[in-house]
């Protein structure tokens, strides 16, 4: 997680550096009075690299997807609580179809 965050920050820094290079390039163009057709090649490469790093960081940093199946392995909520006084059984779970293959997780 921290690795992905540093990679994202690094990508953003590369983008800022590319912006600064473009500003310098435009200053140069003003001196030589040429038209701006596109940023120079090294700036484009920097932009692509920075963008790819930020792309990867944007997909990794926010967290992992969690399964939404109620019966998948990572969503098991089977437990035997110590205090049985507050357990209620008269809830809406009775409308679910009856499961005959419930397993205890050790």
């Amino acid at each position, binding site marked *: 997680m921290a690795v992905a965050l540093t990679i994202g920050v690094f990508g953003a820094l590369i983008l800022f550096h590319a912006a600064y290079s473009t500003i310098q390039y435009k200053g140069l163009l003003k001196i030589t009075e040429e038209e701006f057709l596109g940023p120079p090649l090294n700036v484009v490469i920097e932009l692509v690299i920075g963008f790819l790093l930020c792309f990867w960081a944007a997909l990794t940093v926010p967290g992992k997807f969690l399964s939404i199946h109620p019966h998948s392995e990572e969503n098991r909520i*089977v437990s035997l609580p110590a205090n049985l006084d507050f357990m209620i059984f008269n809830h809406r779970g009775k409308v679910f179809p009856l499961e005959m293959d419930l397993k*205890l997780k050790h």
Partner: protein
Amino acid sequence: MAVHSGSGSSEKKSSNGVNELLAFNAENMQSNMKIIYYSRTFLSIIGGVVAGILGFTGLKGFVFYLLLMAFTSLGLVAKAKFSIHTYFDSWNRVLVDGFLGGLMSFVLFWTFAYDIAHIF
């Protein structure tokens, strides 16, 4: 003997035509939607900065945004390991959600970056 306790997850029934699940874990679903939203917003901002630096104007910028969102959708589908129904209840959520909000962030940072790099 096994017992279901409802303390960790809230279950919700939903039954529209696209949905196959009778009930799903709504808390995880919301967390997944938040992840998509953050990813799209951040990538819209980065894409806006890139578009401004490259000097896109007018229609080219919006086409760039469409391409960007297409890549983002592809990336999100890859992150979900191509089995969308394990993490979401319909394809629309991962493909379309957050498109317009991202568009506004994109245009904002596009104009910022364009002004900084090309006008001042």
